[in-house]
């Protein structure tokens, strides 16, 4: 790997008794899109906050753009762009005015200010709405403006904390197109967190985090290869009997997930006909697919990440932070 632009060693964050992050090690190469994937409360936001110098680690070290986050947070901040989980735009100002404000507080030289604002507006396709007040923007446009803002001072790394949270699937895809575009044009490194499994597929590499620790790290394909081959899911009126029989005669251990039997087999195309032919218990439905990151997470943690559930918890968390978070 080329010299890492993000390097964390043994990062720990404790809140009293609670250990939110329990020893994170990772390296991100220049130009990479690196995804931090995990359910809510896994420690994603805490980790990203430490890397962005918004929180100081209880233990461990991290260097971002070659600068120690504890010793020189101000210089780290000059080198990184941030897109927060919660909105942070002034919606009474226009898009352009929000960018101008940012250019000033990040000391973007006056000679290039205007050109760079135009360039970023162009890149995120906001040029025609640049003079409208942000309160008239859609959710996706606001996010794009925040991304444009985060890029304005030419950071080496763009950090995004759940950038697509609360956006509809089409808008989410659109944001991703823009992020990819941004990376290929500027070569910027992107570090982002998400709990949407499908999004993680867009990343070059993913770290799966659970309960404050990285449980797996690799490219999406490498991670999926951790699941042995294909995933077969079947339903039956006699699930228990089916499970028992499969274990005995096929030497595969099925797991029960939401009233289905799920098993990982090396070669699904051959396994399914054999299963249907030889199983004495009646099969209702059967399906075969390539493993997804959901399957990886399930295999590693024994639990599924579910977006709906996460959505609820998110809302609760946001409510809680509104009333309590500021007290910290």
């Amino acid at each position: 790997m080329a010299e890492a632009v993000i390097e964390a060693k043994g990062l720990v964050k404790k809140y009293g008794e609670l250990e939110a992050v329990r020893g994170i090690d990772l390296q991100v190469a220049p130009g990479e899109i690196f995804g931090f994937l995990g359910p809510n409360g896994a420690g994603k936001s805490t980790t990203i906050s430490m890397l962005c110098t918004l929180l100081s680690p209880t233990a461990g070290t991290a260097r971002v753009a070659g600068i120690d986050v504890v010793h020189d947070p101000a210089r780290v901040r000059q080198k990184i762009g941030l897109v927060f989980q919660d909105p942070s735009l002034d919606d009474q100002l226009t898009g352009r005015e929000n960018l101008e404000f940012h250019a000033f507080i990040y000391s973007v030289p006056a000679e290039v200010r205007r050109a760079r604002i135009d360039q970023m507006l162009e890149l995120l396709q906001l040029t025609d709405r640049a003079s409208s007040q942000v309160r008239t923007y859609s959710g996706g446009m606001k996010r794009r403006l925040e991304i444009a803002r985060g890029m304005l001072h030419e950071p080496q790394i763009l950090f995004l904390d759940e950038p697509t949270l609360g956006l509809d699937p089409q808008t989410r895809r659109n944001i991703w197109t823009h992020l990819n575009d941004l990376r290929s044009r500027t070569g910027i490194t992107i570090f982002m967190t998400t709990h949407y499994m499908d999004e993680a597929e867009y990343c070059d590499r993913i770290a799966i985090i659970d309960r404050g620790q990285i449980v797996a790290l690799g490219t999406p394909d490498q991670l999926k290869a951790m699941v042995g081959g294909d995933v077969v899911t079947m339903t039956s009126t006699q699930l228990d009997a089916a499970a028992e029989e499969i274990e005995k005669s096929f030497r595969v251990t099925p797991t029960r997930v939401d009233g289905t039997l799920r098993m990982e087999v090396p070669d699904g195309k051959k396994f399914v006909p054999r299963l249907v032919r030889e199983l004495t218990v009646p099969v209702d439905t059967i399906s075969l697919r390539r493993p997804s990151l959901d399957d990886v997470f399930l295999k590693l943690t024994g639990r599924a990440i579910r977006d709906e559930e996460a959505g609820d918890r998110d809302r609760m968390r946001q409510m809680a932070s509104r009333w309590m978070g500021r007290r910290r």
Partner: protein
Amino acid sequence: MSVETATKPMAADLTIPVDTRAASLRAIYIIWYRDILRYWRDRWRLVASLAQPLLFLIVFGSGLSSSLGSGTLFGARGGLSYIQFMYPGIIGMSILFTAIFGAMSIVWDREFGFLKEVLVAPIDRWAVAVGKALGGTTQAMIQGLILLVLAPFVGVKLSVLTVLAIIPLAAVLAFGLASFGVMLASMMKSLQGFQVVMNFLMMPMFFLSGALFPLTGLPGWMTVLTRLDPASYGIDPLRRVVLSDSGLSSAVVDRLGLTINGHVLPIPLEVGVMLAFGVVLLGIAVVMFQRRD
């Protein structure tokens, strides 16, 4: 890597010459500018904020005038009507509320997330406090000075010189109170405390400031409280200057003025008190801002 790195390899992007003083000044400017922009854009607020002073002058002033008999300070003999008296006080009131509200918009910024964008920027926190204080000061000055157009309607004559003298006095009052607002905001976590601030700090400050009645001949406890109210030291010079052109004898004006132990305070001293108040409170705000994460 730019071409420069080839000629100066040692300088390779380790030390970007970040001039922190220039960066802070830029930050102060843009924070101030944003406040003015928002103030200007929100025309309705501008109009609405003129309604209250007008209501005070027309309804409250006229109503009270007619019940103040000739035996009082505002009798025919003194030549000063109550409306004339309260007019500079109402200018002071506008400045007081606008300055504090303007500076306290930090709490709104925190509520709606924008403050985060400001606080994570590579700038010194003191610049944020100063920028906000100046933003509140400017808004309050505009708000106060707009009311000068009402002078002819309340029987107050203003010369150009008087107006020129009013501007710095309005600025000093606005600055002191805006600093107060920034300090309050630096201690408030959410909008929840806002009602408390309004009812227990701003309203008493307004009532005790001498905006509505002369601060002479009051009960002892109230005399003390009015002299502790910083706004008194900003409104009194404003009144003296505003009324100076209206053909009143200086004896009458002095009789209405702020005294301590019977001594009339000179305007420079009052200005000094107000400025000191502003500087100290802004200092506290800066410390508070730097401390919080």
